[in-house]
């Protein structure tokens, strides 16, 4: 396969993934401390390690969660 094409595809993919995860990390900080409570009242009295457990998922699925939060408004 053409090396230049593979390099371009790889770098585009990894750059997009990187940006997505960076934004996700920023969102996840808001989400685990505040957003989750609004989305699901069951989170309110949950222990701190529960927030730790949902943290990686909120980094990966931040678009879905943000959409759900906006709809809730």
């Amino acid at each position, binding site marked *: 396969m053409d090396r230049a094409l*593979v390099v371009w595809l*790889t770098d585009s993919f*990894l750059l997009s993934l990187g940006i997505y995860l960076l934004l996700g990390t920023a969102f996840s900080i808001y989400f685990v401390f505040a957003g989750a409570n609004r989305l699901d009242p069951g989170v309110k009295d949950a222990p701190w*390690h529960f927030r730790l457990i949902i943290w990686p998922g909120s980094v*990966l699925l931040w678009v*879905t*969660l943000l959409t759900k939060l906006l709809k809730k408004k």
Partner: protein
Amino acid sequence: MSVSYRSILWNKQKIRYDKGLVLFILIFLVAFFGIHLVFHSNVTIETIIIRAFGLLSLVLLHVILTIGPLTRINPRFLIVLYNRRHLGVTMFLMALIHGAFSMMNFHGLGDINPIRSIFLSNLQYQSVAHFPFQVLGFFALLILGLMAVTSHDFWLKNLGYKTWKALHMMVYIAYGLVILHVVMGVIQNETSIVLFAVILTAFFGIAMLHLLVAVRETTTDQQSKLNAEWVLVGAPEEIKESRAKIVAVSGERVAIFLYQGMLSAVNNVCRHQGGPLGEGKIIDGCITCPWHGYQYLPGNGQSPPPFTEKVETYDLKLENGQVWVNAQPHPEGTAVEPLKIS
């Protein structure tokens, strides 16, 4: 569920299960390291770690994929299904160790970023024999990671059952990628045909198990295909006390439960993870899902407070000693007078 979340709801049985899992991993790793240190002492420790954790996660993935169909064939295996998520998360962690070590070992300390190197070292993407198999492992790990981080009930509720289930059905894509990763990687590396035969047998074993269950379930669904207003269930004697019979009603499965001389019909799909309610049992007056123990009142399809799950209910009638179910469901949680049989 609408009570407060806990990180993990431990109980004695669950702890016993997890102890078994830890024991499994320990036995496997000790055996692998022991055998290699004695019989393959020339191999470097990094290679042993990479191979041990790679094989361990491969084995665990096969164990996990066996559980689902096994419980449908014999409900006695349901106890293995419960807590399967701990197996899944553990399997991902083992695969992550394998992936991280491989990346550090093969791609680290080089002239380009190790993650880029996974994609850009071997460029024979058009070849079967020389294909860069590590890329397949990378994507498999990504999928397994996505599943592992969303395995808590919080995600099930907040993503919605359908999205969650779709996400977790991706395990089959991951499995395909893993098989290709293994076949094009280590199996191609070793000259023996034996490994290839073993992995092929395992793959067909998993495929056959799933196929067998699929065929059985299609047969159940074909039992009553009629699109009529009322669908025949059968004689009430066919149903055991506190148990149900499942019939297909215009594309949906309905579970008809018998309890204290009464019959009630609810949708067969549990709102938690889609477990088959009709394979469950009535305990303390509630239909109890065999998968994770979610409960519904047979009379109205509602979970007892403080829980909020609801399933559809159906009308029943008795004619000439035969039970019939109405094809039109009531909305979720609608109370329906149970059918009394003398």
